[in-house]
C-alpha cells in the first residue's frame, strides 16, 4: 500500500503547470506568513516566555521560512506568472531576512529591539497576506500588474 502511495505520488502533476505553481506559491506564502505571525506573537509576549523557548520558536520559524522559500524558488513559474513569481520571491526573501534579524535579536537577548521588530513583522505579514489574496484570485486577474 505504501509502495502504491509512493508510485501514485510520482504521478502527481509536475511543474511548470499553472495551477501547480499557484498551489506551490500559496503553500510557501502560507508557511512563511505563519512563521512571521508566530515570531511576531512570541516577541509581543516575550516576557511570558523562557529564553530558550523564545529562541527555539525564532530559530524554527526562520528554518521553516527558509525551507518554504527555497522550495518555491526551485519551481520554474509558467510564462504568464513570471511577474507574479518575482513579486512573491521578493516578498518571501524580505520576510526570511526579517526573521533572521529577529532570531539574531533573540539570541542576543536584545529586548530593546523587539518592539520595532514586531512592527516590521506585522507589516511583512500584511504584505504577504495581500499577495496571497491576489494569487488566490488568479487566474481571473492574471493580466493585472
Amino acid at each position, binding site marked *: 500500500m505504501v509502495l502504491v502511495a509512493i508510485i501514485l505520488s510520482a504521478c*502527481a502533476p509536475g511543474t511548470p503547470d499553472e495551477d501547480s505553481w499557484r*498551489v506551490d506559491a500559496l*503553500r510557501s506564502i502560507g508557511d512563511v506568513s505563519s512563521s512571521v505571525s508566530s515570531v511576531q506573537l512570541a516577541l509581543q*509576549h516575550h516576557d511570558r*516566555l*523562557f529564553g530558550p523557548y523564545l529562541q527555539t*520558536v525564532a530559530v524554527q520559524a526562520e528554518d521553516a521560512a527558509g525551507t518554504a522559500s527555497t522550495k518555491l524558488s526551485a519551481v520554474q513559474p509558467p510564462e504568464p506568472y513570471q511577474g507574479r513569481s518575482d513579486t512573491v520571491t521578493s516578498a518571501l526573501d524580505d520576510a526570511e531576512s526579517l526573521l533572521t534579524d529577529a532570531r539574531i535579536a533573540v539570541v542576543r537577548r536584545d529586548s530593546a529591539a523587539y518592539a520595532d521588530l514586531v512592527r516590521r513583522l506585522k507589516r511583512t505579514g500584511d504584505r504577504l497576506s495581500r499577495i496571497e489574496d491576489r494569487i488566490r484570485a488568479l487566474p481571473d486577474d492574471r493580466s493585472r500588474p
Partner: protein
Amino acid sequence: MKKLLNVALGVLTAIGGFVDIGDLVTNAQVGARFGLSLAWVTLLGVVGIIVFAEMSGRIAAVSGRATFDLVRERLGPAMGMANLLGSMGVTLLTYVAEIGGVALAFQLICGVDYLLLFPFVGALVWLVLWRAKFSVIENLFGLLGLALIVFVVALLKLGPDWSQLGHSAVSFQPPKPEAWSTWAYYAVALFGAAMTPYEVFFFSSGGVEEKWGVKDIGVMRTNVLLGFPLGGVLSVAIAACTYVVFNPLSASVDTLGQVGLPVAIALGKIGLAIALLGFVAATFGAACETGLSTGYSIAQYFGWQWGKFVRTDVAARFHLVLLLSTVIALGVLATGIDPVQVTEASVVFSALALPLTYFPILVVANDRDYMGEHVNGRVLNVLAMFFMVVLTVVALAAIPLMIWTRMGA
C-alpha cells in the same frame, strides 16, 4: 478504599496517557486552520477507542493472554502476519515520532537543537524500558501527562467567544478558504491520532502484565469510560487554544513551540512550565508505550516469552526487539527528518492500518471458546460493526487524500 484508589489512578493515567505527539500536533494544526469544525472527529475517535480498548482489555482479563497471541491462534499465521506487519509498521513510525517529540520538547526547555538531543533521549527511553517497572512506566508518565490540563485552564483564561467556538464545533464544514479535501484529510489524520493502534496493544498487554482477571473488568471499564473521554477533552482544548490564538492571524501550526504559545500568552511562565512538563511526560510516556508495543507485538506473534513481569534474561528476545526498535528509530531520526513530519505521516498511516488492527480483536471478542460468557453483547457488536465500516472508509480514503491534498497543503 484500595479499589477506589486503583480506579482513580487508572482514570488519571488514561487521561494523561491519551495525548501523545500525534494528538498534540494534529489537534493544534486542526484548531489553527479549521477551528472546532472537526471536534466531532475527536468525539468519534474517543468512542471508537473506548469500544475497542474495552474489548481488548476484556480479552486480556478473561483469557489472560494478549492480542497478538490470540490473533495468530484464532485467525491463523497469514492473517496474524498481515495484522503484525500493518500494526508494527505504524507503531514503529509512531515510536520514531515520539522519540523525536521528546527531543523537541527538551529543545524548548534548554534551547539545544533536537538533533543533538535525540540520541540521549533514545538511550534514556531504552534504559527505562529495560530497567523500570511496568507500573512506573504506566503510572508516572500518565500522571505527569495530566499537566496538559493546563490547556483547559489556558482556554478559560484566553476568554474566547464561546458562541463562536460553539458555532465552529457544529458547523461540520471547512471554514473559508479551506477546501473540502483538505478538511477531509485532517479528519482522517485526527481519527488516526485518536485511534492509534499501539494504544490498544499497550492496554491489553498491560492487562496481562498486571495479571488482570475477570474481577478486574469493572475497574478496567471505569478507566476506559472515564479516562479516554477526559483525554478527548484535553485534545479539544488544545485545538480550541490554537484556534483562538492563531486563527485570527491566518497562521498554521507546524512546530511544538507554536503549540505551547497560547498557554504562555494566557498563563505566563508558570503555565508554560506546566505545559512543557506535560509535553515531556506525554511524549516520553508514549515513547515507552510504543517501544513496548513493538516488543509485545513481535514476541506475542512468535510465541516468545515477553513482558516486564518476567526477568530480563527470561525474555531476552523481547528485550532485543526493544533495543533494535530503538536503534532503528534513532537511525531514522539521524537522517535529519523533521519529527513533526514523521508525526503527520504516522497518524495518516495509522488510519490506513486501523481495520487490520481492530478486526481481529472483534473476532476474538466474539469467540465463546476464549471469552465464555464475556463475549460481546448485541449492542456492542452493532457499535463495533459501525466502527468497522468507518475504519474501512477512513483507511481507503487516507492515501488518496494524502496525495490529492499534498499532505494537507
